[in-house]
């Protein structure tokens, strides 16, 4: 980016420090001294992207190498996008202000489906041809990773390389192979072919997709590419790389605190949850490692808050030791600890008490479904008693605000289940008023949020067809009416239109690449931001591509091939089928910590634990 032009642009745009870099602990290297120049792109605005732990980990891992310079790039907000276009320059990296098309490798993380048009937009703004087939050796290689790549088919035509699983494990291999390719001047095809043989790598261009009429038929590898591409993951979290000096942005982030990961994976087996399936197996960091990394991160940033994160923090096996150790480590240093993703069960009480001297912002609970019957269907193993106890404890410990999350449109849902949500909210209200008036804190506020359930690939609910938009809207109206009668309750709900588009892509196939490209041309971007989402443009894109969105809402038989069957993250299709059948009968599956359920994940610590017990 031309320096003078940039200076003028930065004087005009909103929040210019989104586009400058130069934060504490950001890495500056001379690009010409490094063999591999890597741009890590996050397809959302800076404050969202910098809150993402994975981005920070990969940035750190790549920059610790002595052959690679990794820089960052975020989606420019529309005001900046206009300025970049008008200036005739390209989207550039924050550190060295290099245009994206001058990098060796450009990597994207796909955190959710509604960021897809931002990926296309960033490629275009960076001066890079969007389709893999249109890029020769002179263009950067485009890589993707993140949870959405477990069904990357709707974006498959745009990426040269897809990373399945944890980037800190596989990034080194990719860099080494890339250097070899550059040294030996091998063809792009040969280089990709070689990479395809590595576990954790998926090369979409090496697979042909066949359709029967409107229906997906199957996907077949070409040129000897593997039948299934498997994910890779870190085994030992204590030995896994961790950024001890995380970047400290000037701008306030969405999550502006030290994010301390305490374990990966989840043993609960909630049937709607893609994260709970694809991040298996469970792998914990030791208390010792967590405390050491916490100290380093706080010393190197000055953050006043630390958040212990995982998919279900209450499940950490040494939680008591950890919380005690944290209090000891952090005493007298004016730092608060938060534990998000606590489940509503008996444990929660203990931790709430240990956090008693902390900020009481409010309690967030996710029962997900209103009735016990439906919670059994989705395998969310919490009971009404758990919830009652949690809110009772909260209200007696100084909380007066509770957020409750539910999903509408879960499999087998009836209006009785939705009515049960309102009943649950009344119960929460009653718990508050049970506390003697003089002991109550503040004014009761119950925020009820419902999202529209989106069946995701690689979950037991991948065989479920999402509710129609009319169904969702009817259900939202119904619940709104019921909640109106409850004093102190506020109701928020997700836009059914966004959820429908998300559902198409979550279980979509490769034909959708054309739709994403067309939607981007029509001006779709920042689709996860309600002020930018434009359903009509999306529908126009489908129409112009000759694709009927309804074909993605057809029932699939259990043994039918699915567009993502060739991507494996370890859990078998057989296990998912079994879980789907159990869910329809309302039969729950217990936590893997109480015994292995045979999901198929290799090297899972729960297998060993079960063997030992028997």
């Amino acid at each position, binding site marked *: 980016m031309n320096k003078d032009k940039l200076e*003028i642009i*930065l*004087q005009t745009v909103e*929040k*210019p*420090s989104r586009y*400058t*870099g*130069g*934060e*504490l602990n*950001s890495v500056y290297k001379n690009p010409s001294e490094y063999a591999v120049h890597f741009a890590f792109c996050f397809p959302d605005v800076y404050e969202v992207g910098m809150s993402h732990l994975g981005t920070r980990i990969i940035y750190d891992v790549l920059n610790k190498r002595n052959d690679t310079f990794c820089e960052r790039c975020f989606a420019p907000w529309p005001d900046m996008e206009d300025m970049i276009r008008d200036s005739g320059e390209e989207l550039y990296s924050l550190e060295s202000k290099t245009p994206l098309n001058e990098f060796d490798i450009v990597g994207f993380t796909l955190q959710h489906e509604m960021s897809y048009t931002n990926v296309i937009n960033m490629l275009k703004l960076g001066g890079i041809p969007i389709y893999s087939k249109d890029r020769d050796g002179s263009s950067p290689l485009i890589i993707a990773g993140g949870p959405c790549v477990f069904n990357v088919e709707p974006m498959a035509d745009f990426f040269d390389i897809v990373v399945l699983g944890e980037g800190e494990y596989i990034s080194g291999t990719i860099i080494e192979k890339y250097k070899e390719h550059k040294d030996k001047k091998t063809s792009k095809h040969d280089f990709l072919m070689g990479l395809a043989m590595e576990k954790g790598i998926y090369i979409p261009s090496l697979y042909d997709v066949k359709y029967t009429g409107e229906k997906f038929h199957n996907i077949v590898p070409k040129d000897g590419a593997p039948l299934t591409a498997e994910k890779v993951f870190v085994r030992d979290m204590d030995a896994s790389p961790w950024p001890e000096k995380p970047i*400290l942005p*000037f*701008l*306030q982030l969405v999550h502006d605190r030290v994010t301390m990961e305490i374990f990966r994976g989840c043993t609960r087996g909630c049937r709607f949850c893609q994260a709970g399936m694809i991040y298996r197996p469970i792998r914990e960091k030791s208390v010792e490692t967590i405390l050491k990394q916490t100290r380093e991160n706080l*010393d*190197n*940033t*000055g*953050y*006043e808050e630390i958040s212990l994160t995982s998919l279900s923090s209450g499940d950490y096996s040494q939680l008591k030791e950890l919380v005690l150790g944290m209090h000891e480590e952090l005493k007298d240093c*004016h730092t608060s600890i938060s534990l998000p993703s606590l489940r509503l069960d008996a444990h929660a009480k203990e931790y709430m008490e240990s956090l008693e001297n902390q*900020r009481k912002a409010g309690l967030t609970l996710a029962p997900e479904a209103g009735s016990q019957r439906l919670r059994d269907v989705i395998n969310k193993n919490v009971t009404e008693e758990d919830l009652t106890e949690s809110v009772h404890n909260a209200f007696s410990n100084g909380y007066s605000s509770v957020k409750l999350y539910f999903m509408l449109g879960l499999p087998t849902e009836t209006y009785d289940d939705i009515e049960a949500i309102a009943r649950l909210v009344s119960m929460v209200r009653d718990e508050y008023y049970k506390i003697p008036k003089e002991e109550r804190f503040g004014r009761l506020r119950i925020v009820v949020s419902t999202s529209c359930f989106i069946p995701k690939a690689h979950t037991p609910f991948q065989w479920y067809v999402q509710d129609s938009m009319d169904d969702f809207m009817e259900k939202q109206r119904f619940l709104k009416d019921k909640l109106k009668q409850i004093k102190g309750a506020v109701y928020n709900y997700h836009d059914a239109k966004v959820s429908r588009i998300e559902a198409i892509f979550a279980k979509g196939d490769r034909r959708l690449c054309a739709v994403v490209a067309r939607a981007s041309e029509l001006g779709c971007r920042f689709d996860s931001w309600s002020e930018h989402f434009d359903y009509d443009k999306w529908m126009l894109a489908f129409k112009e591509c000759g694709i009927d969105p309804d074909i993605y809402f057809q029932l699939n038989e259990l043994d039918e091939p699915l567009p993502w069957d060739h991507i494996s993250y370890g859990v078998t299709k057989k296990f998912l089928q079994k879980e789907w059948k159990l869910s329809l009968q309302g039969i729950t599956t217990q936590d893997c910590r109480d015994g292995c359920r045979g999901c198929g994940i290799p090297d899972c610590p729960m297998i060993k634990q079960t063997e030992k017990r028997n």
Partner: protein
Amino acid sequence: MRVIVKYSKTNEAIYVSHLDVQRSMQRTLRRSGLPVKYTLGFHPHIALTFALPLSVAVESFGEYMEFSLIDYVSPEIIKAKINAVIAPGFYAESCGYISNEYHSLMSSVAMCEWVVKIKGIPQKELADEVKRIKDSTELLVEKRTKKGFRDVEIRKGIYDISLTADAADTVHMRLAAGGKENISPKMVLAAMGIEQKDARITRKDIYFEREGKHYPLLSMCNKPNF
């Protein structure tokens, strides 16, 4: 023990907003390991105040912040500890202790010294404009307020304006600042008919007033000898 720090804000840090500077400095002090004083109460934070906000995209060599220490540390060590951990683009130029005789930094501010480098205007024209401003007795500038646009008189707040001796494209200004009257260089530029994109603004220092004379805020650290 009240400490003031004079710091600069240059390079890409000029794009950091005042609110973000406040948060960044809180964290800088936390990293420094200095025995800083925290506020009492339920959510303790460092009691840290700033003399005057600075507009985004403006460089400065004379910003000030104030905090307290609970143990004595020599000014040299305070400066060294801050600079060891301060965010890129910021630099603690000097620091020292001030007595309680002084009010808060913010309420002491009376004047700012600025230099503005101007491009794209012939030097003769610029010199004429500076002279016109200097010779005027009244200058009305349109100012945007909450209620709409309003003309304000700024000449009285321009204490001095001249071309700098060593660069004919750079205007030196001393302008009223603080609660009573606040004249920004942008207002003066507007009076001169110069567009903002053609100007590079730098704040050199912030002053307080004592018996009709102006002194840099940093001189509060010396024993008073007015």
